[in-house]
């Protein structure tokens, strides 16, 4: 029993779960009864994309990479989706094409980082500019709409809670499958130490490649959810998402140096970021300083969660082995 508890505490996502629960309680105190059906539907609609793309990003981060093309890929999918639905194509066909485009983006990222060995952050900066450029080319100004039938289905699913829950479920199940598979173990191994994994016979380049493709698939699903929620096309719709997703991953206990973390933690981190905005709106009444307050809160959350995670990892590590420390 005790060892189970310690295992739970040592779970990288534990600290972000604590943060999530405490934010829920704080919000309940500040504005009692806020957690109604309308709030949940709205919250999942607007923050769902961030939660889902954070889980996707965590795959890349765990394998020791970095991806700042999240917003580029999501904008491209958004624009493709709307352009196709304007032309009156069948919904299933649209979704298939969107997923193919997302896979293509992931393949480009993976090819350049994995097989051509260019520094991840710079590669994904360049590809981000490539993807968002194509998106802006296809749709220079915001327009378009989503088919009525799809919109009705989206809002009425599960007794009015909305389809984001379905998308979220797909993503979470996908994450668990990846985590439990052989590939998942390889992702962690490559992230922890590339050279050692190479020497143990793992095809490091292929694992890196696959991590970017899988992440792009996750972003695609989250972009489809986002587009249906906004029901419109805009090439700059996801512009702030990358930075928020990275922050969410760090809050969720994913180490940027790779090898440690859990996608569920990233999801908790992203949810906390969304809840923190509700908290800030309740405390800071001056509209012009709300951005500043949420920035400060984010910084404090990052510092606090990282330090706590490291403290726990050192305190409860097996046989004194330091698991969760930054590599020097």
């Amino acid at each position, binding site marked *: 029993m005790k060892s189970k508890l310690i295992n739970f505490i040592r779970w990288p996502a534990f600290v972000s779960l604590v943060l999530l629960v405490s934010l829920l309680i704080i919000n309940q105190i500040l504005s009692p009864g806020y957690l109604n059906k309308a709030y949940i539907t709205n919250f999942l609609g607007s923050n769902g994309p961030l939660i889902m793309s954070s889980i996707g990003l965590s795959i890349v981060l765990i394998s020791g990479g970095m991806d700042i093309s999240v917003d580029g890929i999501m904008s491209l999918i958004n624009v493709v989706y709307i352009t196709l639905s304007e032309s009156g194509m069948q919904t299933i066909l649209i979704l298939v094409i969107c997923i193919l485009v997302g896979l293509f983006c992931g393949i480009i990222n993976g090819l350049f980082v994995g097989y051509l060995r*260019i520094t991840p952050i710079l590669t994904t900066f360049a590809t981000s500019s*490539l993807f968002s450029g194509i998106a802006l080319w296809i749709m220079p100004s915001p327009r378009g709409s989503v088919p009525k039938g799809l919109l009705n289905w989206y809002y009425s699913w599960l007794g009015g809670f909305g389809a984001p829950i379905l998308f979220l479920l797909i993503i979470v199940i996908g994450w668990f499958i990846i985590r439990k598979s052989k590939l998942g173990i390889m992702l962690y191994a490559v992230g922890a130490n590339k050279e050692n994994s190479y020497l143990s016979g793992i095809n490091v380049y292929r694992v890196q490649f696959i991590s970017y493709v899988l992440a792009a698939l996750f972003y695609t699903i989250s972009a489809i959810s986002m587009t249906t929620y906004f029901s419109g096309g805009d090439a700059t719709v996801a512009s702030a998402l990358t930075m928020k997703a990275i922050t969410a991953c760090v809050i969720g206990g994913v180490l940027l140096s790779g090898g440690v973390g859990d996608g569920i933690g990233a999801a908790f981190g992203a949810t906390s970021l969304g809840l923190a905005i509700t908290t800030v709106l309740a405390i800071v009444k001056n509209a012009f300083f709300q951005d500043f307050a949420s920035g400060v809160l984010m910084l404090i959350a*990052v510092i606090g969660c990282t330090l706590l995670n490291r403290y726990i990892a050192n305190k409860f590590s097996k046989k004194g082995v330091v698991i969760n420390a930054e590599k020097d």
Partner: protein
Amino acid sequence: MLRKINKNNEIIRNFLPSIIIIVLMLLVGNILTPGFTSANNVFNIICKASVLTIVCIGQAFVMISGNSGIDMSVGSIMSCAALLGPSMTQGQNIGLLWSLPIFLILGFLVGVINGLCIQKFRLPALVVTLCMGIVVDGLTIGFTHGKPSLKIPDLLLELGIPYLGRMRLLTIIVIVLLFLMELFLQKSKYGRQLFLCGSNQNVARLSGLRVNVIVVISYGISAMMAALAGFALVGYVGSAQLFMADEYTMLSVASVVIGGTSLSGGKGGVIGGALGAFVLFLLTSILTVLGLPDGARIGIEGLVLLLILMANSRESKLRI
């Protein structure tokens, strides 16, 4: 003598790719649109690149400091200085006398907070500076209420006007600054210590260097340079808006890397960043004169950047 030649070789090896790219781009530009290499156009591009060069100086200091150092808050600090700095002067030249130093010091302090979080708490630089950027952006919105600033001192506006022949005043100032900072980085005691910290922090610590102080100062310099670049940008553009310098963050990282400074630290210099900045703005300029739509231009920029990186900065193979 021999050592000197070796050292020169290394400098040539670092700068050669970007110089070749610059020459190629000038040639391509001239073929696509005759008159592209006229003195006026080239010096205009150099003037645009000068603003980015100031940011690159700071970014180079941070990258050299190692430990995957990167400063993602420079764009926000630039926007903040560009918006708030000139509006503090009420459009009077004399106001610059105190508004510029105040913003340089404020910038330095922001950088010091960045550095302290990174060194003391051992947090990843990327995330700390990202969050700091959001904080600084929030402050800018809070103080300006999102209004653009139009009262700009005449002295700042002079920066973009041709001065010496076709050379802009800003370019001359930046070249002087560039050489001073390169000298500071390569010859001063602090600069040498920074290189050692970048190559191996543990060795630097064991040699009795105050690693934390040295690295924190490098972040301070980066943020200070970003504040200075904000003033230069508003002088060149002529007006300031919210988030006007956001893209400078990643542009500065890219140009410093194109200029031969590695992201892993301990290597590089300041002048490479200037060459990289020139490459990036040359590319933008060529694509702009072709008359492509905005989206296509941004897309092709990304593609070319990818090719440049492929030629310039690949990591070593795992198999030895």
